């Protein structure tokens, strides 16, 4: 096995179709890291994956996977990667077992070794009881799980998951999250995943790149990204209807201690560095001033807040019917 520090090194990567699908993107992924591309429909996630996995030639820029250049040494790259594509690539006419069997043979496995691999992977994704069913009859979640199993048959060092949970129900989604976490733990796999679900990026990824319009607009750990817009929000609701004098007074005191305080619809809003530390302090102050607090709540900033902060729009805003149509149109025209 080749030694390398960075599983993936992307430099000034650009892909131009009619317009720029990926526009001067650079990033590095360390070995053993789970890295997520978070972005709305059409951001360029799949195009980036297609280039890294040798399926598309970059218009310009360079990509190294485990030290191998994807354009000069595509087969070395192909040997060590596994992929779950956004749209299913299973053979629908064949059984689950046959799909894995064909994949394994193509990657050079055979005999009992292959059989054992297939069975253990089917077990891993809890499909062992469906091994001999034709894939056509599978639900969306079962297909996804089977594809994950298939992508693992040849023991890849680096795994690509393009929107692994898109269109799945919450239960199946959390199953798949579990698999992903186990893959990292049990096989020390490097995982590159794309998603437009913030929770997914947040709960799985060591580092996240937020991508929009073909450009990376922010990159870092969840905490680093959130610290870009700073702060936790604390909300206070008081027992009795306060007169304006009272409100002014409270705001003054809060501002004295924390700064950044506001009242919106009768609820006090305080921006703090760390809500966990600030809330006890608020109670101390309340006690001293004999305030009667009815409700306290707080909110950490979400990645969506970060996205809004950077682009002025929400990640979900562009996820409607319009985009579904585009996705189908794109699929039809492929290859």
């Amino acid at each position, binding site marked *: 096995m080749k030694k390398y520090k960075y599983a993936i090194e992307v430099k000034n990567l650009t892909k131009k179709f009619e317009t720029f699908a990926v526009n001067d993107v650079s990033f590095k992924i360390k070995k053993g890291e789970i890295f997520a591309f978070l972005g709305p429909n059409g951001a360029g996630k799949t195009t980036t994956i*297609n280039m890294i*996995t*040798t*399926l*598309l*030639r970059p218009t310009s820029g360079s990509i190294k996977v485990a030290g191998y250049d994807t354009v000069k040494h595509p*087969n*070395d790259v*192909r*040997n060590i*990667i596994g*992929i779950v*594509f956004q*749209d*299913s*690539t*299973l*053979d*629908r*006419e*064949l059984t689950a077992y*046959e799909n894995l069997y*064909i*994949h394994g*043979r*193509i*990657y*050079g496995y*055979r005999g009992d070794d292959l059989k054992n691999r297939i069975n253990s992977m089917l077990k891993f994704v809890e499909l062992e009881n469906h091994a001999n069913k*034709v894939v056509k009859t599978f639900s969306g979640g079962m297909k996804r799980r089977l594809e994950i199993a298939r992508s693992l048959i040849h023991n890849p060092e680096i795994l690509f998951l393009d929107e692994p949970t898109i269109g799945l129900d919450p239960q199946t989604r959390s199953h798949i999250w579990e698999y992903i976490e186990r893959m990292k733990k049990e096989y020390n796999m490097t995982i590159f995943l794309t998603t437009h679900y913030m929770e997914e990026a947040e709960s799985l990824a060591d580092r996240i790149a937020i991508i929009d319009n073909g450009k990376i607009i922010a990159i870092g750990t969840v905490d680093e990204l959130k610290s870009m817009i700073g702060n936790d929000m604390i909300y206070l609701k008081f027992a009795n209807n306060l007169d304006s004098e009272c409100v002014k007074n409270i705001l003054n005191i809060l501002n004295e201690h924390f700064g950044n305080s506001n009242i919106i619809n009768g609820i006090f809003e305080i921006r703090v560095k760390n809500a966990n530390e600030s809330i006890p302090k608020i109670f101390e102050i309340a006690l001293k001033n004999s305030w009667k607090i009815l409700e306290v709540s707080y909110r950490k900033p979400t990645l969506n807040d970060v996205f809004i902060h950077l682009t002025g729009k929400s990640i979900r805003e562009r996820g409607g019917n319009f985009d579904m149509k585009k996705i189908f149109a794109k*699929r*039809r*025209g*492929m*290859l």
Partner: protein
Amino acid sequence: MNVITTMAYRQIRRFTRARSRIIGTILHPIIWITFFGLGWSRALNFPEAKALFGGVDYLTYLVPGIVAITIFTTSFMSGMSVIIDKDYGFLKEILVAPVSRSKAIFGRILGDSTTSILRGIIILLMCAFITHINILGVIPVLIIGVLLAFTFSSIGISFALKMNNLEGFGLVMNMITLPLMFLSGAFYPISSLPIWIRIFAYINPLTYAVDGMRYFLIGKSQFPIVMDFGILSVLCVVFLSIGMYLFEKATIE
């Protein structure tokens, strides 16, 4: 080697899954033989006609043609499955695998050819009961069948790699299969065609397969058998190479 056999296995496995397809492709030639062949065989049952068909009854004359056409149409349909694989994404699974693309596509052609030759054999054996063909000729006929199947699988796949939808492929297939069928000498001797049409028959690969098969099954042929084999072999190599080249260059753009 793994890749070739695996891809061949996959094509054959898919074929055996689709029962309706198997029945359909066997039913088709049977309809030709019974409704077309039997009828004309009665109508053409006089000495001058027999002389035209090389001294055998029309039904017997028809057998090599039907076998060749069965192999030709079913192997051409190889292309259809390539387009289906594009649509359902399976092709990407192959494109991203660390294998020789030429071998992968060769395996595919091998698998599809096997199934279409199998269908040819079934038709041939059924015809053996009702006509006067030379049963010993079956072996060399199979060799011609292999060349024919490889040639048209490759042609079908080459078209498919350059096309995006089933409708387009269906159109090409319809436009190509009918003329090739009628200009192949399968139904009547090429020599009875006007000169300017005969030219198209001469550049039709199917012509040489029909002629070669007729040589071994009936003992009559228009061209020397060496020429049939020679031309088919060359075409086979040429189209196989084109198919491999196109697949080598295939991307998902």
